């Protein structure tokens, strides 16, 4: 009886630990020290630039983390463009987007060639429609 209880307890602990690890692996948290974040009802997107301070006409990369509601990592594709809405033009380059791990993307080949008001446009695939998340910022 004692052996049965000990074994049950052992398996219970093992199962709890395993379940907690699965839950932890699936838990989607925003990037630490993010440069910016955008939230809506369906998504929580955070991004971090590399280098941390971006400059006019110098190449940079973006690390992007996308979580869906309920803190599950976003698994579909991501697109990004940066535009100057007032001038109605975007970048001169098409950035390279690579999926790194669950919900995490690396975007290389970004370059903003003018100082002024810019906007990131992230295109995501929602449950039944396309979703665009935008973030305005001033580049000096």
């Amino acid at each position: 009886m004692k052996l049965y209880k000990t074994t049950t307890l052992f398996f219970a602990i093992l199962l709890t630990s395993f379940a907690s690890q699965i839950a932890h692996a699936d838990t989607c948290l925003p990037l630490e020290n993010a440069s910016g974040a955008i939230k809506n009802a369906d998504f929580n997107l955070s991004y971090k630039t590399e280098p941390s301070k971006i400059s006019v006409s110098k190449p940079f990369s973006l690390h992007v983390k996308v979580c869906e509601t309920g803190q599950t990592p976003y698994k579909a594709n991501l697109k990004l463009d940066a535009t100057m809405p007032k001038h109605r033009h975007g970048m001169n380059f098409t950035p390279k987007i690579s999926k790194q791990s669950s919900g995490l993307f690396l975007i290389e080949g970004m370059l903003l060639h003018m100082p002024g008001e810019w906007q990131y446009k992230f295109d995501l695939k929602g449950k039944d429609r396309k979703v665009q998340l935008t973030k305005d910022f001033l580049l000096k």
Partner: protein
Amino acid sequence: MTMPSTWTFLLSLFVLLSFSLPVNASQFFTDEEKSQILAQGPWPPKASLDHTNRYSGNSQAIALGESLFNDKNLSSSGEFSCSSCHDKNKYFADGLKVAIAAGKNPRNTPSLVNSKFQRWFGWGGSVDTLWGVGLRAILNPLEMDSSADHVSQYISSNQKLTQQVKTLLPPDTQPTTADEHLVIIGKIIASFIETLVSKETPFDRFRQAIAEDDKDAMATYPLAAKRGLKFFLGRGRCTVCHFGPLFTNKEFADIGIPYFVKPGTVDKGRYQGIKDFKTSSFNRAGPYSDGKAGAQTLLTGRIKLQHRNWGEFRVPSLRSVADTAPYMHNGSVKSLTEVIDHYSELNEDRLHTDGIAILRSLNMSPTEKSDLVAFLKSLSAENPKGD
């Protein structure tokens, strides 16, 4: 003295004093303007070696490159060298409206000084390597009108040159094709061009004075240049394109200069440049590049061809701009004053824009124009050769 004449006298005195008193630059520029001024330096910017060119920074290659730069035997006729159009006594340009060598080129010869800091080369940006743009000039029928075979045969027939090139190659290797030989020569010449960097200017010293809050040093920068700089940053909004230490964002713009070469012939500018770039072998990512990795290669390889690229030409650096007349891609503007007149009385109907216009007619006063010229002249070193 009657009352009105007293007032007139006092007013004149006030106006006179306000122009002649020393202006405290610390107060003349706002914090925002000072921050903009700091972004236009320091000079020269840090630059690493060109890893697409194995001879970059190699002193032996630089010496040989200078000799080849002046060697007319590289051209098919034996009449033209790189220095025929890039004259060291003319700031490595030619001072002509358009380049004239083996033929008449529809474009103005840009200076080679500071070209190592650029991202794209040529008015349309058809190449992303310095060695590639040199090779393009060697092969262009309107420039040196040469060929890989001609260059290879010339080098091979000259024992001294063959030996000099051989000492730069990795041990026990030699070019196996004429194209390889040509590319080696282009890279050796580029290693010399990389050394052409302009000297410190009055503007750079003023910028440094602002960085150090050195009021005495700030006071030595002429008042007209200060006013011109204020206009450049403010109402002129010139830093939208002429941004950073090189005074260019290293990209392309349409500023309303006609791009008809002659009736029925159009210079497509950046549009054709991107098309040519995508098919060129002399790119950072191409077969002759010595190092294809890196952010710069990834970036240029992902250039977008867009309709708006029609009629766009490279935003030139303004460093030493006073020394490189005439101006624009077709050399159609003779002087700095005329360049400023162009922006002052800009025909906005000529510009392609979907949104708020980046360029607007500036309607400048004569004083604003002369101040801007004074500022632009302060972007030249007093003694460019530094000797």
